[in-house]
């Protein structure tokens, strides 16, 4: 119930392509869904986040799509660049708790 499942584990994309990472959850009490980006040797950094009352949120080349009925959400990276190569984590939180529940991570490699 507290899990967030993430796929794929790794992803290779050509420069300029679209990277898509998917996450699914079971607990309907989750009410906020952030995505974190982690570069080697660094801690996770908040990238973009969405609430379940919104179906899509876009910030620059990064878009979250949210499907409340399916309990799924995904990160789309448009026009992927080599600088986007990193590990991406989806996460979930619920009101009243003080913790993030992370997915297992996706290692993205963007080749020129």
């Amino acid at each position, binding site marked *: 119930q507290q899990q967030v499942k993430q796929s794929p584990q790794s992803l290779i994309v050509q420069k300029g392509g679209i990277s898509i990472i998917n996450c699914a959850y079971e607990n309907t009490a989750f009410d906020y869904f952030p995505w974190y980006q982690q570069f080697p040797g660094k*801690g996770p950094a*908040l990238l973009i986040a969405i609430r379940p009352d919104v179906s899509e949120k876009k910030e620059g080349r990064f878009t979250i799509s949210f499907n409340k009925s399916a309990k799924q959400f995904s990160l789309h990276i448009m026009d992927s660049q080599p600088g986007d190569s990193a590990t991406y984590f989806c996460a979930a939180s619920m009101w009243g708790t003080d*913790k*993030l529940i992370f997915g*297992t*991570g996706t290692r993205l490699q963007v080749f020129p």
Partner: protein
Amino acid sequence: EPEVTQTPSHQVTQMGQEVILRCVPISNHLYFYWYRQILGQKVEFLVSFYNNEISEKSEIFDDQFSVERPDGSNFTLKIRSTKLEDSAMYFCASRPRLGRVETQYFGPGTRLLVL
């Protein structure tokens, strides 16, 4: 830009030894966290700390673990008697008073290896 810092970056210890991992949160932040990531696995919440006391802890955070804010700048995680399965990357995080829990700022981590 202010950052969360952690020391040491790497630590190797023998099973049964005590270790202290140190963190300096961002200066005006009031909520502090420890997470860990076993190699190849997901990031897991350990504990949150506010107003000099634990506000929430996970099942992982048993009696072998403790946290402390010994002064106005440091936040520490102590493992009293390390086990092989404690080998992981440990992340400290902090957030300001305002803002949702997900606005946590993470440090670069301490890689702990227990032999």
